[in-house]
């Protein structure tokens, strides 16, 4: 188990402040946060390349804070891959084993099997600068995995490759993670990536860990408004009053199953808001008459902004629904959402 205890580190403008976290063996832990220098510093602290100003790092209870990186066994894969340009792919992959003094035959066999695993066996004699981004990333992963690290530290591993290649690499990461009990500690600014890969997700803002959660839970309990903003949650509504049946916000009565009096915000996923021309018959739902204010393309879907009295909401609908509903600015529709689709914090 990897544990960080109250790690502090100041580096230029950036500060890691009182960072405490623990990761179990075999866990895929994703640190999610906005782009910036901080996340690389965090990984370099864990790897032992940067000393924390204070705090301790332990592995299975043993203090490793001052163990130099080469004896810590935490391999770091940089965003720019950091492949050695003077060595070919095979030389890059073999580097860690050679440094550990393995004999030539063992090195050769393990380079073969690891490159096989990552689908780069046909590239072994190429120089890194001749590879595509995805191939470089696979090489960097092979080079790190061959040393059988206790922890694999990944710095935005999918940020610099094509969207399609990123999708393939996500699967590769998941597959190699499932093959052993190496901890994967992956930092990214990409929410989708975090949801897809993480067993646990930690949200890091301003050098502090603001929330640790699972992909299933993270959208239900974003903890505070800043985290919610970072996660790109729409329809976050400030609650004016808690009522027996739910709550009141901007003059609209919403029926929810909230029982906690300390709730200050509720939110609804735009894709959970249904729009229709006529009222739905179902009585169990929140149902309101609404007016279309505008819409925008949001990837393959459309985001329609509607107003219910003083409340503005966003609903996500398909292009066919958009056509069916004959939406224009000012169109009057009915919107509805289940009580169970309302989350609060």
């Amino acid at each position, binding site marked *: 188990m990897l544990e960080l205890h109250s790690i502090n580190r100041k580096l230029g403008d950036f500060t890691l402040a009182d960072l405490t976290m623990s990761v179990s063996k075999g866990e895929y832990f994703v640190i999610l946060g906005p782009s910036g220098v901080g996340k690389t510093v965090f990984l370099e602290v864990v790897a032992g390349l940067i000393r924390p100003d204070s705090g301790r790092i332990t592995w299975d209870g043993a203090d490793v804070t001052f163990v130099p990186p080469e004896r810590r066994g935490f391999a*770091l894969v940089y965003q720019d891959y950091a492949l050695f340009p003077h060595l070919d792919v095979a030389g890059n992959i073999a580097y860690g084993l050679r440094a550990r003094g393995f004999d030539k035959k063992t090195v050769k066999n393990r380079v073969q099997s690891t490159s096989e695993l990552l689908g780069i066996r046909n590239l072994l004699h190429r120089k890194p600068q001749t590879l595509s981004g995805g191939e470089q990333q696979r090489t960097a992963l092979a080079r790190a995995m061959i040393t059988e690290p206790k922890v694999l530290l990944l710095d935005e591993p999918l940020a610099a490759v094509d969207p399609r290649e990123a999708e393939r690499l996500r699967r590769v990461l998941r597959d190699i993670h499932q093959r052993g009990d190496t901890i994967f500690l992956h930092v990214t600014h990409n929410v989708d990536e975090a949801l897809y890969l993480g067993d646990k997700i930690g949200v890091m803002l301003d050098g502090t860990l603001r929330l640790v959660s699972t992909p299933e839970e993270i959208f239900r309990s974003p903890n505070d408004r800043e985290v919610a903003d970072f996660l790109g949650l729409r329809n976050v509504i400030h609650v004016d009053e808690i009522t027996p049946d739910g709550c009141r916000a901007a003059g609209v009565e919403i029926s929810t199953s909230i029982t906690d009096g300390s709730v200050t915000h509720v939110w609804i996923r735009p894709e959970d808001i249904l729009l229709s021309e006529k009222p739905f018959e179902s009585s169990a739902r929140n149902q309101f008459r609404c007016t279309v204010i505008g819409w925008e393309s949001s990837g393959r879907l459309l985001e329609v902004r509607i107003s219910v009295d003083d409340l503005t909401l966003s609903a996500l609908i398909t292009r066919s629904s958009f056509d069916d509903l004959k939406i224009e600015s000012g169109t009057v529709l009915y919107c509805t959402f289940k009580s169970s689709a309302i989350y609060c914090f």
Partner: protein
Amino acid sequence: MSNPRSTKAGRPIPWTGLVFTLLGSLVLLFIIAPLAGILLASSFGEISDAAADEEVRSSVSLTLSAALMATIACTVTGIPLAYLLARKRFFGRSTLFAIIDLPIIVPHTTAGIALLTVVGRDSLFGSTFGSLVGTAPGIAVAMAFVSVPFLINAAHNGFAKVPVHLESAARTLGASPCRTFFTISVPLAWRDILTGMIMMWARGISEFGAVVIIAYHPMTTPTLVFERFNDYGLAHARSAAVVLLIICVLIFAALRFVAKRRSREE
């Protein structure tokens, strides 16, 4: 292009480029003309006579070997310094850069006088190990002093170009700092290191002012050229000067070629 007027074909005349090329050619001409002049002024017979001259031969071999010794000694001590300067940030770092550049700006005869105070007859070093005045090691010391900045600066540039990420990655893969230095940093900075060594060697060979103060005898070729010029005039000095010039240019060209080849292979 600063004041483009269109030609018939619609392509503007690149005035700025033309002016720049003209000015740049002037400075190139200024470098090439004297060297071409001295080569053209010397007949092949003169040069081969000088090359056969025993005094010229022994001075050339002394000059080359003393400069080589200086380069090797400074490589062992200068490369680690260059690496530290490229990687560590510490108080006084920029002062160290200034100190390293000092030998370039110290007047050569002053450098010779200064070296006399530490390796001369009356110095601590001289009275303990024997004076280096008038010896080949003394010449090597004078050459090393004036030429070591070229090696350190070139090696520093080389190391500075190696991304720290590569070294950090090597460390997390299990390589010690020493192994990382020899398997990552040095190979990647190799071209600049080699260029620095060539420059240092060549700069050592070229030195006259500091060497002549430490040792008029045994005589290096620059000193020999000076003596012949003073005693017999331009014509006599020229043939010895051309011999050394040709050797310098050949070494320089050959080693630059090697440095270039290596970097292309990488």
